[in-house]
């Protein structure tokens, strides 16, 4: 990182300071480390929210900065979750199985232990064999590698295919949506090797920390999530500043022009797409141990669209906007759907927010798109001392794939 990077981007420091304060505050109020004003489950919710903020800034970079409306980043998030979930589930089942087998007169062979684990894990889908994709599940290191490698490779291959054939705009969005759908449908099958629609469960139990209370584990994951968000923010702030940021935003606004300047646009898109996919995978790997369960429904295309909604509401093209959007909407959403919001009695009809929240969200999202394209983040412009200039360019390319008249008009 070049010197002066932070001084040129004061908002990064502000953000890191705010994140640090928030982390400190939660630590002081948490059950394990402080007064206990915040319940363990709420600390988990906050930790999960931080992970969602991390994937939201990844989404912001790929969409708000680079103009690729990916409807597939939640798939990478899910893959990260599955990768870590496989180890968590394997290691924990191994501990349980070894314990129960220790009672036998004759000690079990290694194969017997593995078979027993297989029966435990895959009993629900009527199998006991370990599928090939579980080959590394006994190694934490290798599975952590998978968290990064699988989303990265998938993004690399998919992106290479898509960008190479110059699919852009809504076409690309639909293609990424199709990819996500294919992945979730695949995972829904029982013979996918990942327990079909049962998904992976019991992920909140961390092997080796059986005796540590969940309150402690939750705050530890909260810290890890905060750290990951901070580092992710720094990384993306670095990527989107300077010349790289300039080129990426150039690609968003006029891809053909960047190409005629001699930049290989496809490589840049691929770089951004893959990098954000990897970060999404990491966010997922931190999220799901806090959620405790992952199943294919989490990967469904709708999740990725919600991600876009968060970023749009928070404000595209600025990293803190994405964070605000993700935190605001996801917390609000769990408040409304969790029955936290009071019902509104209209006399003839009582609005129950568990039923009406999605209607409200959908319509307010339309309203944000129409009336406040800058999102919540736009408010910061109003209070900022140095008003950032009105953007004149458009968000993203104008038409679909392969425009014949690119740049000539």
């Amino acid at each position, binding site marked *: 990182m070049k010197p002066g990077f932070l001084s040129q981007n004061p908002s990064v420091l502000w953000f890191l300071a705010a994140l640090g304060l928030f982390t400190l505050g939660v630590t002081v109020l948490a059950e394990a480390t402080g007064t206990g004003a915040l319940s363990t489950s709420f600390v988990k919710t906050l930790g999960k929210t931080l992970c969602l903020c991390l994937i939201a800034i990844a989404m912001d970079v790929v969409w708000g900065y680079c103009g690729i409306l990916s409807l597939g980043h939640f798939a990478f998030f899910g893959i990260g979750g599955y990768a870590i979930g496989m180890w968590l589930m394997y290691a924990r089942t191994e501990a349980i199985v070894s314990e129960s087998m220790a009672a036998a*007169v*004759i000690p079990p062979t*290694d194969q017997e232990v593995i078979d027993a684990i297989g029966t435990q894990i895959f009993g629900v889908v009527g199998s006991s064999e370990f599928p090939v994709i579980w080959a590394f599940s006994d190694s934490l290191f290798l599975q952590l590698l998978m968290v990064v490698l699988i989303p990265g490779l998938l993004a690399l291959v998919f992106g290479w295919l898509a960008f190479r054939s110059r699919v852009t705009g*809504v076409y690309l969005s639909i293609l990424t949506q199709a*990819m996500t*759908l*294919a992945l979730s449908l695949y995972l829904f*099958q029982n013979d996918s090797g990942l327990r079909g629609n049962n998904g992976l469960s019991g992920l909140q139990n961390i092997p080796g920390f059986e005796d540590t209370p969940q309150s402690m584990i939750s705050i530890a994951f909260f810290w890890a999530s905060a750290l990951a968000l901070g580092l992710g923010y720094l990384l993306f702030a670095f990527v989107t500043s300077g010349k790289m940021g300039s080129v990426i935003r150039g690609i968003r606004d006029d891809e053909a022009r960047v190409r005629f300047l001699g930049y290989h646009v496809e490589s840049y898109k691929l770089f951004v797409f893959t990098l954000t996919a990897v970060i999404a995978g990491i966010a997922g790997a931190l999220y799901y141990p806090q959620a405790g369960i992952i199943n294919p429904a989490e990967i469904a295309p709708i999740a990725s669209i919600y991600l876009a909604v968060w970023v749009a509401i928070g404000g595209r093209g600025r990293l803190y906007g994405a964070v605000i959007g993700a935190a605001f909407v996801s917390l609000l959403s769990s408040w409304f759907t969790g029955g936290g919001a009071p019902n509104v009695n209209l006399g003839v009809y009582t609005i129950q927010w568990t039923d009406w929240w999605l209607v409200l969200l*959908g319509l307010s999202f339309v309203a944000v798109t129409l009336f406040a*394209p800058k999102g919540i983040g736009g408010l910061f412009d109003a209070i900022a001392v140095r008003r950032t200039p009105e953007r004149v360019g458009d968000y993203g390319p104008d038409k679909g794939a392969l425009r014949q008249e690119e740049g000539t008009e």
Partner: protein
Amino acid sequence: MFRTILIILAVCLAAPSIASAQDLQSILQSHQKLVAKPSAKTVGTVLDDLAASGLSGTADFLERWRNKELWVRTEDGLFFYTTADGSDLTLLDIDTGETVGTAIKKDLKQIRPNGGVRKAIASALVQFQLSDPDIARRTAAVDAIARAMTADQLAPLQAAIDNEPDAALKARKTRLAGMLAASFADTTEARVAAIQALSDDISVDVRAVLNQILTTKRATAAALPEGANIAAQLTVGQDISETEAYAMLVDADLAPARVSASDILSALTANASDGRVADTPVGTLNTLEARAKVYDTLAAAGTVPTRITDAEAQRLIETHVYFDAYIEKDPAITQAARLALDGIETRVAVSQAADLTLDALSLASIYFLAAIGLAVTFGVMGVINMAHGEFIMMGAYTGYVVQLFIPNYTASIIVALPLAFAVTFAAGVAMERLVIRWLYHRPLETLLATFGISIALQQLAKNIFGTQARPLTSPAWLDGAWVINDVIAISYIRIAIFVLALIFLALIVWILRKTRLGLEVRAVTQNPGMAASMGINPDRINMLTFGLGSGIAGIAGVAIGLYAKVTSEMGADYIVQSFMTVVVGGVGNVWGTLAGATMIGFLQKGIEWFNPSNTLAAQTYMILFIILFIQFRPKGIVALKGRAAGD
């Protein structure tokens, strides 16, 4: 038994002349004990006599006897049918069916034939019924034979063919007799001839008969047995695994059972004491090799049976042959059956291909209906409408609501189609005016805004109609299926949807090519600025186009609702496929959408055919294929060089 049949036939032919010679009651009284306390062994005499009597009430009597409706009066041993009359019974004469008095229940005894007797009665009944004057009964009798074919049905059935007056039923009888003959005829020649006669019939029951003849049993022996009708000899390692081969040997008592790993484990566990097994500490027994060694020690001491070594097992496997032998001993028959079945299977495959094509066509027409509205809006306005699926849903719910008010299904569908169009047209126009108009040239934001509308509409539908599926019932004349043969069948609803798709294809092509609106739409598509300067109002065109696209979605919703469930999520089920259809087909082109729908429909059915157990996998592979397809045809199938399609 055969004798009985001949007698029945004689009786049937001459029935009127001797019908009144006797009455049932007197025949029954001559066998009073056997009727009142029937047993499977003795009932035959009664049945024979009844058959010989040729009385018209015999079949009715047999049926009632079997159904435990016959009562005997304790006092004089006479038989009656009864009807309940309060706690008493009204007695009916078994010959005339007339009321002859009442009695209290304990004076009579119900005759309850046991299962074996009932079976014998039923069999005799079939013979009567096959020649019954009532066609419904004859049909029922034929159905009964078809359900459970046995050897003894062959003769009565064959005998009942010639005098069958109804041509259709006669054909059925002949066919059934052919199937029975293939399995049960007395001579090899007769069976082979019957089998050959079956070879141009692809129906499921004929295939079942042939497969029955071709049933094999897997066996092993030191050498191929003499006189056995061998279907195939099996090669170990190729047709069957070594484990399977050895298991067969064990089952046939040709080899001792092998001691498995779990046997060893239980033997060791049983012989463990003080933490040791045969002086070996149990702690070291955590590998299969260590366990086997200790087991052998135990075996040497005679505590447990000796293990068969791998080499010995191998030798045993190699010194035996493994084969599938036909149960049917006569090779001429199995050969004929095999030949016939092969021929039939080829024809079945052809029919299946035809059936698959029909299925694919119907799926394609559904995708076409679902996607064409999207294609119109996308093509003309460059707008991706994520709420398109919800318009489909809205159309389906419109149909549902109409059916709540108009109970006549035909009338309600006729009302629902235009109403669904009107409702979704209005919704589309409203959405265009309120939202989309402000977002032109920002396609990604349009995509997201329409997505917002989509989740709001979906939840709204959930709040109004609940989460459970709502029925949209098709009129009775659309029930059932058009059955071409046992393999090819397509339901009328799917045909109707196909026709609807064709109508819409024609309608849209007509609108775009022959009407003023179509001309203006094409003008706006190609050059909005120029069109505006020619006095066309692009706003109006966009609004109408969007309305049209949404309206078609509404009609598609009614059509889809007729054969699938109506739920708030039904739109979401079709939206991705609709996008795929549009993208694969090529944007802004009706023919492209048609080509896309056809390709996706055929592709999905084709993949499902390869992997029939798993529609999820089929969809996964289809999407992957589409992603690859986009690589080679980024602009879709149509939308190639040349403006051949013109719209």
